[in-house]
């Protein structure tokens, strides 16, 4: 499981947690999120997310 971070506003998407409120089940891999999904905080597109190193 990986984490992805919005490079614009810092929002983090954690694959393990998903986003159940958005209909994204826990465990959903980044590549399985629709391409037109955008950052829930700032609206930036998927392209503006980078994989984070897991500490």
């Amino acid at each position: 499981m990986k984490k992805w971070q919005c490079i614009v506003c810092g929002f983090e998407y954690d694959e393990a947690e998903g986003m159940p409120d958005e209909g994204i089940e826990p465990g959903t891999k980044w590549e399985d999120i629709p391409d037109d999904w955008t950052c829930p905080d700032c609206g930036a597109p998927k392209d503006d997310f980078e994989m984070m190193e897991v500490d």
Partner: protein
Amino acid sequence: MDTADFTLAQARAHDRKRWLWPMGFGIILIVAAVALTGWLTGLTPLMFAGPITVYLLVPLLDLAIGKDSTNPPERVLDILEDDPFYRYSTYIYVLVQMALFIGVCTIVGTQDLTGWQWLGFVSTIGMLSGISINTAHELGHKNTVVESWLAKIALAPVAYGHFYVEHNYGHHRRVATPEDPASARMGESFWAFLPRTVVGSVRSAWHIEARRLARRGRPVWSLHNEVLQAWAMTALLWGTLLLVFGLALLPFLIVQAMLGASLLEAVNYAEHYGLLRARRADGRYERCRPEHSWNNDHIVTNIFLFHLQRHSDHHAHPTRRYQSLRHFDEAPELPTGYAGMIVLAYFPPLWYRVMDPRVLAHYQGDLRRANLQPGARARLLSQYPPPA
């Protein structure tokens, strides 16, 4: 995306403003040249070229020259996004700005100026420092080492380094919500917004950076603190100037920085005035959409501000470069360019008269959906009662 059917030259030909973009730094060069001419020839009024340009010439030119609402085809935008021509205009801007700033500080620090001459220089350099925050904004959204450092350098003269952090990680996240210090509320005058945004932005930037550093196990007082990095640019620049020219230069530095910062905040005031993202059932705000920013397509201000007024697309695609920002028909539109709106913002009764009906129309008469100033809420709702 398929880009084979456009060559670089064809893509460039699609950008109707292509040869105007270098006027971004061209304008500040001309303004400074006029101010210097005023000083050299004794025609002191010319030294006020900065405020005259921002408050008078640009708003009038906007009205005279009009709008460009064209969008090049998507494939062309992809090519233009990678065209270094546009980047270089912003790099050159920062170099020009620094040279002008240091040059004028040298004059102020070494020459005997009359009170009017001092005021002319401080107001003109103040305007240039304010406009440079916009260039820093363009650069600060880009994820390259060169551009992020140029952004911090561009914020040095105006001592607004925290903007680099607050804007991206604060404003873009909380835009068009009551929690955002950089989104103005309906019924909030510019003069009430100004202290709220200045104090709120510094506080927000510091909290954001402290939290980010804590997550990485670093102390807030560290060289990795980007707020401190950006402020250090000011300490270095101002410190050197004060060391060379003496403390007598300090009032000049402080006044031009205050003028510059307040100019930027007047633009911020206009960008999201009264607009509000609705809260969803789960308590989060809805995503930022085109309807949450005020836009404008007047050419002169758009050149001056690197398409900042195509603000809805900027919030949708914050890392997109200025040349590829698009006009949206569905985005709310200001009656004139940001430059003209700044002048209006200084006179709250005029501002309300022009803007409040626009916010009202945007929300189809239902101001409960707008971002209202708490103290003005009851008055606004009784003045414009929501539909039953």
